[in-house]
């Protein structure tokens, strides 16, 4: 009998726990959804009145919760506290759910879901607000202001593009990466084609199968297990075969005909090379199943000799290496192509490309104040604050030039995560801004990325490697900016399909097919490669790729027409 009681009691206890957790959850959710009532009546008050704004954007692990130097400054100056809601993955799901529930935060960076939000009437037309309250924003966009226009039929401005205006690339974050130690051991050979790249890895791996502390070295690892398969596996396919980035498409520059880029015969050869890399054991077999965390952990352990990725994607892992002082295991970047006949088109001009932008939603408490806030951030004062920090603290004026103190620069380059978290520099770039290479009225650059600064920020290893190749920045290794004509349509990846259109469904299907077939083809035995690639192309056909291509061709042509007005 006693035992029975005890059992019943423990069961009850368990149930109580379940209830407690369940209730706890629902309470939390409720808390998130409720608007903060004390701030809603801040309308028409002087700007110093404290106000909390909810802001949905991609995840930022270095977010400082307004506690950094800049965060505190902004809070004091504008009275505004930003409360971010970070989106998981690339934000697709969370944003779609926002649309489904018809409840939005004040500010949102809708990214891939912009279309859906516009269709749902969730975003405010910013044009009248900018005209009336935001001279600085208008000034920043300058002649490109009209490129913000939504479409041919709708001249509203829904998002303020966050990419820098008049941006000059001084450094390249793309290409194929090799560890400095690999290059040094091989005597800095020429790295132009995939064969050179492969040989460098192969030679090094044969001599050094393990790292100094006995862990096995990995030849080449790709970030192919999550959405970055696009960045690390499929985008390099067109970059290595002489085409610029048009998302999943290849655009014929004369006729504006669009095809899915996998349909180009050149790219089959690129994937064949990856297949070969896998066959000879240089490719990390976990490339397509690893999670992003695993990928970063591997890089941070210094075991991965080569990457094919973008710097922003592997940056955090490389920062960890730098913080540990393992500079020889950090990476140099090269414009590698399939063979000598191709040139890397990463930097083919587009004119100003309005891309990822910030939007004010229809649920915003006080749109006028928000646009004024964004306008402040876009002002000369605001931009210097966001990029450089506070004078006397994060930079000093020396002979009329802004200079970052040595110890801060050291932290910025070698322990960037801490730097961002404590200073807040880089965390508040949420308004219109100038790109690198633009100078403010005082003759200084707005951003901290300019040739001298880039070179100053390179590690000794970077400098040694660059010297060996007779370059001052990695960008020097790429073809010069004017090597190719400007693309009149900008870039096709900025052209989203209508969310309810058939083309949009086809696009999702083709992406699913790609995510399955490309890894399959790369991991297959070399003799099976063609069979699988043929099947891949056939699957694309069956999914209706022709229809989608046709649709995009039309959109590209419309864009050309709209922008040349």
């Amino acid at each position, binding site marked *: 009998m006693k*035992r*029975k009681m*005890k*059992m*019943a009691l*423990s*069961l009850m206890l*368990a149930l109580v726990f379940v209830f407690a957790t369940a209730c706890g959850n629902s309470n939390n959710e409720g808390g998130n959804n409720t608007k903060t009532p004390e701030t809603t009546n801040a309308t028409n008050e002087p700007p110093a009145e404290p106000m909390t704004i909810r802001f949905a954007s991609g995840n930022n692990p270095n977010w400082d919760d307004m506690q950094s130097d800049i965060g505190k400054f902004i809070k004091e100056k504008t009275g505004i506290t930003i409360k971010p809601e970070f989106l998981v993955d690339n934000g*697709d*799901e969370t944003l*779609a*759910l926002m*649309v*489904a529930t*018809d409840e939005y935060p004040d500010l949102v960076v809708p990214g891939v*879901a912009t*279309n*859906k939000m516009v*269709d*749902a*009437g969730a975003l405010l037309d910013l044009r009248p607000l900018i005209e009336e309250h935001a001279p600085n924003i208008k000034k920043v966009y300058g002649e490109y202001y009209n490129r913000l226009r939504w479409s041919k039929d709708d001249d509203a401005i829904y998002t303020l593009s966050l990419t820098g205006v008049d941006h000059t690339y001084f450094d390249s974050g793309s290409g194929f990466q090799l560890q400095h130690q690999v290059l040094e051991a091989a005597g800095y050979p020429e790295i132009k084609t995939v064969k050179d790249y492969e040989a460098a890895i192969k030679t090094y791996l044969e001599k050094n199968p393990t790292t100094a502390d006995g862990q*096995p070295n*990995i030849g080449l690892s790709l970030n*192919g*297990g999550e959405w970055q*398969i696009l960045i690390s596996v499929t985008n390099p396919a067109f970059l290595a075969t002489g085409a610029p980035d048009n998302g999943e498409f290849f655009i014929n520059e004369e006729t504006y005909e669009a095809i899915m880029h996998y349909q180009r015969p050149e790219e089959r050869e690129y994937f064949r090379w990856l297949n070969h890399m896998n066959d000879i054991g240089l490719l*990390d*077999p*976990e490339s*397509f*199943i*690893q*999670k992003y*965390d*695993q990928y970063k952990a*591997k890089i941070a352990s210094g075991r991965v000799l080569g990457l094919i990725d973008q710097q922003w994607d592997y940056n955090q892992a490389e920062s960890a290496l730098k913080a540990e002082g393992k500079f020889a295991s950090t990476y140099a970047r090269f414009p590698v192509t399939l063979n000598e006949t191709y040139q890397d088109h990463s930097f083919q001009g587009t004119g100003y490309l309005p891309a990822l932008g910030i939007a004010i939603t229809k649920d915003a408490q006080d749109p006028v104040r928000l646009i004024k806030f964004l306008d402040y951030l876009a002002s000369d004062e605001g931009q210097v604050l966001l990029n450089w920090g506070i004078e006397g603290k994060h930079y000093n004026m020396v002979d009329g030039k802004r200079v970052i103190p040595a110890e801060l620069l050291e932290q910025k380059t070698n322990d960037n995560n801490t730097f961002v978290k404590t200073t807040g520099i880089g965390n508040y770039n949420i308004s219109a801004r100038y790109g690198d290479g633009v100078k403010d009225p005082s003759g200084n650059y707005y951003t901290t990325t300019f040739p001298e600064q880039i070179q100053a920020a390179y590690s000794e290893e970077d400098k040694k490697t660059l010297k060996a190749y007779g370059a001052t920045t990695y960008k020097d290794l790429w073809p010069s900016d004017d090597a190719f004509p400007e693309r009149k349509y900008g870039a096709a990846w900025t052209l989203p399909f209508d*969310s*309810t259109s058939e083309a*949009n*469904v086809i696009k*999702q*299907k083709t992406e*699913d097919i790609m*995510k*399955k077939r490309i*890894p*399959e083809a790369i*991991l297959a035995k070399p003799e099976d490669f063609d069979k699988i690639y043929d099947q891949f192309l056939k699957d694309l056909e069956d999914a209706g790729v022709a229809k989608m291509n046709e649709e995009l061709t039309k959109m590209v042509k419309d864009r050309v027409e709209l922008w040349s007005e």
Partner: protein
Amino acid sequence: MKPLTEMTPEAGSTLKRNRFWFKAFQQRYLYLMSLPFVIWIFIFSYVPVWGWLTAFQNYKPKDSILDQKWVGFDNFIQLFQDERFYIVLRNTLAMSTMGLIVGFTIPVIFALLLNEMKGQFFKRSVQTISYLPHFVSWVVVAGLVYKMLSTDGGAVNQLLMWLNIIDQPIQFMAKGNLFWGILTVSDLWKEMGWNSIIFLAAMAGIDPELYEASTVDGAGRFRKMWHITLPGIRTTFMVLFILSIGHLISIGFEKQFLLGNPVVSDYSEVLDLYALKYGIQMGRYSYGTAIGIFNSVVSILLVFIANGIYKRVTKETVI
């Protein structure tokens, strides 16, 4: 007094009705007490069914539900014509059936064995340890599974290599045909202890006199388990089992989503994930709703079928 048989049929039914109201009045407090829950269920389970209308529309969030364009069964036709739908349906059913079989047999066996234990302290500790994984998030479990099965120093591969069973590490997570098994085993590890709690509770409720009587009759341990313990928990078991059959098709997607990867997507993608990807994520709310309706209808059918079979076999019913 006139006998009842002389009454007209109308009068009889009036009386019956009166009796009902009389009884209702007598039990008015009980009715009042249950009222909040009836309202609660109505609001949260029946009012949302209104949203099913969107499945027959081309729903755009901008306008109200009544101003939408009606498209009839278009969304359902599209759904049943998509071959991907059949793949995810197969995966869903396969994984939930495997989960159902394993998730009911092993915890019952575990509870049986634990029930036979003498030392209270040991028994308690084992029980507590076994259900702790239930509280670990799937995100963490997926991380553990990936690490264990990794070719890059994963424990399982190293063990198999050390035992000379294999000479090359196996890419467990890249093999589609292993995915269902890996998922089922991870799920079992996580939920076994938790699921056995309720069986243990049911076993504790069995009258000890039955055991004493069977000891007198000379029954051994296995006899007792077979003839007393198992029949003793039959009702509990069947209620849980039939309820889980109702959930066969809606198994959620977090396990599959977290454990899956592009290489095994043909085996890992389940119906809920499909609904998310091709429905909500793409802004096709109507399509997503159509999948939801399909889910609900199949679930209800499954519960009634399972209950019907049980009723026929045992002459008892749980619903």
